[in-house]
């Protein structure tokens, strides 16, 4: 019998692909991003125009008609709506959202400044929740049948029903008000004490779901054939879990982390309001309520790009965690 050569050759498939073909996934992603940004900016432009007259906001309610006309001419608000829209889109293309109606700062810079603080919070919360949730999830999913695991599973289940802002209020009540250990609100970049309750509240909200998804994925991986193979070749239970089941199970966890990040951008509006934390969530509410159009628009734009980038990152980590996806086009 002669030696055989494998004909499927997945390994070398990329070598002879043209540059265009290998750039395809990136181009497709960029197309998605363009579509998303177009959708978001257009929707917001018309929504905000429907909501109120920006000239009125600019001039204040007691402005005379002459003042209003002056402002309209100055900001191009006297032109037809379509022209205004095209102008606006042209500016957006140059990343120029205009100045904040409230403070006169560059809207985009203002948003980016606030974003920094929100990202700090989000990053801390996600680190905390993954650090706790993944080990617990792995433990729960490894052998789901025991009594101890059932009890922990039940507790996690009830915790899943507690919204983040409820946790925040309860924590404030105990740690800040009753025990006077921590400040109940405010933000100080170097005041670590102001960080604790917001971080815990956000992490606490995300953790139960993360635990349950990790547990379900680990339990599923443990039923796979390759676990049986590993067992038949002498792997210990711990090796089965850490070396074989978990790398596969983390695929689902990575996907969830991406979704949770997007959720947190929304959730931060509530948490930040509770703690008077000057991040983009707080700014979103503030600027929408005062009809600060440029800021709202810049903010939506930034959040969309951010969430998109996170999703792309999750995609990328999928490719790292699952080699089967590496050679595939998007």
């Amino acid at each position: 019998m002669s030696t055989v050569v494998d004909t499927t050759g997945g390994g070398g498939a990329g070598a002879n692909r043209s540059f265009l073909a290998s750039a395809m996934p990136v181009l497709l992603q960029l197309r998605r991003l363009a579509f998303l940004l177009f959708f978001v900016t257009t929707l917001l432009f018309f929504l905000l125009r429907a909501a109120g007259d920006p000239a009125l906001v600019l001039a204040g309610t007691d402005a005379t008609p002459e003042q209003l006309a002056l402002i309209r001419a100055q900001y191009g608000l006297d032109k037809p709506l379509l022209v205004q829209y095209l102008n606006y889109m042209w500016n957006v293309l140059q990343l120029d959202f205009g100045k904040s109606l409230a403070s006169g700062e560059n809207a985009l810079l203002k948003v980016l400044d606030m974003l920094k603080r929100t990202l700090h919070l989000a990053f801390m919360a996600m680190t905390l929740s993954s650090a706790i949730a993944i080990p617990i999830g792995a433990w729960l999913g490894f052998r789901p049948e025991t009594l101890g695991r059932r009890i922990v599973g039940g507790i996690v289940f009830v915790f899943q029903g507690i919204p983040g802002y409820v946790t925040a209020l309860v924590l404030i009540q105990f740690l800040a008000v009753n025990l006077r250990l921590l400040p109940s609100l405010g933000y100080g970049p170097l005041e670590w004490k102001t960080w604790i309750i917001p971080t815990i509240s956000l992490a606490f909200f995300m953790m139960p779901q993360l635990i349950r998804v990790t547990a379900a994925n680990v339990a599923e991986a443990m039923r796979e054939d390759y676990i049986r193979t590993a067992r038949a070749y002498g792997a210990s239970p711990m090796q089965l879990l850490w070396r074989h089941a978990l790398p596969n199970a983390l695929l689902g966890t990575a996907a969830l982390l991406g979704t949770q990040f997007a959720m947190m951008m929304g959730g931060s509006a509530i948490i930040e309001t509770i703690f008077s934390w000057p991040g983009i969530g707080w700014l979103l509410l503030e600027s929408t309520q005062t009809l600060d159009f440029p800021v709202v628009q810049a903010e939506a734009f930034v959040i969309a790009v951010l969430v998109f980038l996170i999703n792309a990152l999750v995609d990328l980590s999928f490719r790292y965690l699952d080699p089967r996806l590496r050679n595939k086009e998007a």
Partner: protein
Amino acid sequence: MTDIAPPASANTATLDRYKRSRFKNISNFEVIVAGILVTIIAVLAIFGSFLQTHDPMQGDLMARFTPVGEKGYTLGSDNLGRDLWSRMLVGLRWSMSCALTANLINLAIGSTLGLLAAERPGWPRTISRQITDTLQCFPFLVVAIVVVVIIGHGFWPLVLTLGFLAWPIYQRVVFAEASSIFQRDYVKAARIAGVGRFRIMIQHVLPGIRASLMVIFAFHFAGLLIAESALSFLGIGAPLGVPTWGNILAEGRQYMLRAPWMMLVPAGAIVISVVTMNLAGDGIAAMSRKRGRSIDV
């Protein structure tokens, strides 16, 4: 000419076992508990107005901050002396009808787009997925805040905003499950026999995804309850003056020390209803898994 695997006499036994297991499935612990709780919530939401002990809007300034259970105030009274129990009943009705209506809209939009994407490859699929991707890229609470603030307060602005923004989960699950059913040989056989697309959808695909739809409906209901209460907590969902769990909680927050029940009662109610819905979803999922296994064996 019978096959050897199960002897002919075993068939009745199999049938009996199947019936028994079906009965046993329904007696799933989670589903029973969730069923009871859902019934209670539904009864309170529908007949709530008959159960109110006080006028939910009219306060008695002599009875401000009455603790739970005293002077006829079942759940205590608030800073204006209004009965919390009666206010909670109004809020319950508001929250539940809000979440239910929005969920039904989500279900309709999401499953239509999901089925469309699964049934028609080509441009309908591309469009359906592109829209879903776009919405999903955008945290719906962010959009909801902007839209609700701009459109204004009220039931329909809130419900329509949630209804038109929060459906991607349905599209994704329906697309995945329906696609897998469209790949099954029994659907191919039906197509070869000349059965129309619409009938295949109604007779094979919809029954196949029904269990999953019920599961998402329950979980998503919980998610919408959280979203709705969060918005009204921020003061941007319900019209001013309508008591909802969210704004009762927000008011209670200001009297955290003086009257902790003002915060704990709405918070507890939110948690209990969210857990109930999650429980229902979990129970239905467990049931359909079990039944799926009995079908596969």
